[in-house]
């Protein structure tokens, strides 16, 4: 994993704001991304991820704030003069050019000779294992192949940073998982900075060195995958990154004996038949058992009034559909309960600044 603190800064956003009419699509974002980092922006639809990317690439002009690339303020520099390249969500392959010409495009506009640029483009296609498809038109490719062409096209010009806007969004799950691995390997082998936009939390967790969780144009939390998952700072982050059981003030008081908002991950909850269990316990009734293959997801209506989700991995006691209505006891360790701060002032580097309750092992 890349340690972002010890490396030179690749991309720096300062107080970046972009308004469309009244609405602030991006609202005062400060961010530093290190060279060689795999950085993801995660957030619900409309939270401003794409807009940040477009501001970095130069397709949009910020309303205020600045964008610096590799130490140079590029806020007013045109896209074609910025040393970053983009892989678009819809790939934006030129439909009238062959795959090879698409990949060679960036070299062509840099004035490279036909022979050289074709040779390089073929190398790049080789890297994404599409050498045999060089002469096809983009429409003759499948979604996954197109995505790889887009990657080859963006990387062949050897940018210092690559911006990827949900490049896997249009693909089906299996293909997606496969391409995630390839993407990660590509990034390792090229060693360049990736800024990756997604709304899929699992994808972000899988790939990233660090993740910024966006909400309403602001960064709600910034940190490594583990920091986000294990120490979310707000109910929003807790339920956006993975599934969480959120206990509000009243439920917290009833179940935990203290006030405040708390979250608890489904896999940290144990479930036993009857009423013997360690740690904090709460009795309830099974409402639904969903077989997931790897795990089983169980919804339990606690007597305390809250419905909670429990994730039982393979190997623990197994529940099935027939157990609906069975009386069970849910149990968890108090250390696994996360106390959530209110999200009013989202810190940009929560790992250093925020006083959150640490989970002791």
């Amino acid at each position, binding site marked *: 994993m890349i340690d972002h603190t010890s490396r030179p800064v690749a991309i720096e956003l300062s107080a970046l704001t972009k308004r469309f009419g009244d609405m602030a699509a991006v609202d005062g974002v400060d961010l530093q991304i290190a060279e060689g980092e795999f950085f993801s922006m995660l957030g619900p639809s409309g939270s401003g991820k794409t807009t940040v990317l477009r501001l970095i*690439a*130069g*397709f949009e002009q910020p309303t205020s704030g600045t964008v610096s690339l590799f130490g140079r303020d590029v806020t007013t520099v*045109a*896209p*074609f003069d910025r040393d970053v*390249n*983009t892989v*678009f969500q*819809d790939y*934006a*392959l*030129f*439909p*009238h*050019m062959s795959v090879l010409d698409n990949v060679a*495009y*960036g070299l*062509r*506009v*840099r004035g490279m000779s036909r022979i050289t640029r074709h040779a390089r483009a073929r190398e790049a296609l080789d890297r994404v294992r599409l050498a045999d498809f060089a002469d096809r038109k983009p429409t003759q490719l499948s979604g996954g192949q197109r995505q790889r062409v887009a990657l080859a*096209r*963006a990387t062949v*010009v050897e940018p210092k940073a690559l911006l990827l806007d949900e490049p896997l969004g249009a693909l089906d799950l299996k293909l997606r998982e496969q391409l995630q691995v390839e993407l990660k390997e590509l990034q390792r082998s090229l060693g360049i900075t990736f800024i990756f936009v997604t709304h899929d939390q699992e994808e972000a967790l899988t790939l990233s060195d660090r993740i910024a969780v966006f909400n309403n144009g602001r960064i709600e939390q910034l940190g490594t995958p583990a920091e986000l998952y294990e120490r979310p700072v707000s109910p929003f982050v807790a339920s956006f990154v993975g599934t969480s059981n959120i206990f509000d003030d009243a439920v917290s008081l009833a179940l935990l004996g203290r006030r405040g908002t708390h979250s608890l991950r489904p896999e940290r909850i144990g479930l036993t*038949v009857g009423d013997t269990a360690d740690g904090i316990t709460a009795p309830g009734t*099974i409402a639904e058992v969903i077989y997931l293959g790897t795990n089983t997801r169980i919804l339990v209506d606690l007597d305390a009034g809250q419905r909670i989700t429990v994730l039982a991995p393979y190997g623990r*006691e*197994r*529940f*099935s*559909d*027939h*157990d*609906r*209505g*069975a*009386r069970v006891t849910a149990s968890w360790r108090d250390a696994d309960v996360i106390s959530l701060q209110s999200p009013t002032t989202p810190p940009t580097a929560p790992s250093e600044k925020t006083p959150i309750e640490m989970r002791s092992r």
Partner: protein
Amino acid sequence: MTSKAPEADTSTPPTHPARDRVAAPSITLARRASTYLSRHARLRLAVLLSAPLLWLGLVYVAALAALLITALWTVDSFTGQISQTWTLDNIVAVVTGSLYQTVTLRTVGVAILVTIVDIVIALPIAFFMAKVASPRLQRILVIAVLMPLWASYLVKAYAWRSVLSQDGLWDFVVAPFGIESPGYGLPATVITLSYLWLPYVILPIYAGLERVPDSLLEASSDLGARTWRTLGLVVLPMLWPAIIAGSIFSFSLSLGDYITVNIVGGTNQLLGNLVYTNVGAANNLPLAASIALIPIVIMFVYLAAVRRTGALNNL
């Protein structure tokens, strides 16, 4: 697991509020026809195609064929009656006559020039409309481009005659800058025809540009292409079908025009004039039909050449 869950309610059928089931659609004649037709795709196609094909076939293709046959007949110069004796004389005369070669070259030259002028003017305007203007401005611009279509062709041609005349508006406004009015002649014809057909060229190009996704333009500049390269390497190639669609209008309308050239063309005549003169004068339809073959052949060659670009679906 030892405890047994109580029997879930899923195995019992759902209880709907007591009321009628939704009835099946009633069997009307239209429905019976639907049912029949839905099993016979060919018949469906026949129903769709018969009326338009009959129309185009009977009205147009038959008329065109008859005209071409007429080209093989002669006319009795004394009575003006067509005599149906087969001869290639007219066609030979048209193919070999230097008059027809000269006028054909002139006409095609004018048509090409008009087309080029229109495309060159239409491109930036269409680009501005499609890619720069706000939606509101876009709407206004479309209206602005369409409106002149409604001021009669003849009136506009005469307006140009007035503008181009000696001491006319052109000389009044532009001549002080050193560009004198070209007067009446081929340049005036090209100007006027370009003016008349411009909206027919702007509209398809505008529509074509709207179909070029912005993301492609962004991708191009992202890869380092400056605006002009993007236009040359991405926009223009993608726009070809639309440009050709527009050119079919300007080219074919110019190819057949004989009125504008009369009004502003000075002494020049175009193919249309020759055809027109021969239909009337001595009522020589066979010769007129033979001359008409020239634009027909030119357009067929042109259509065949552009068909591959897919432009024919973008008129």
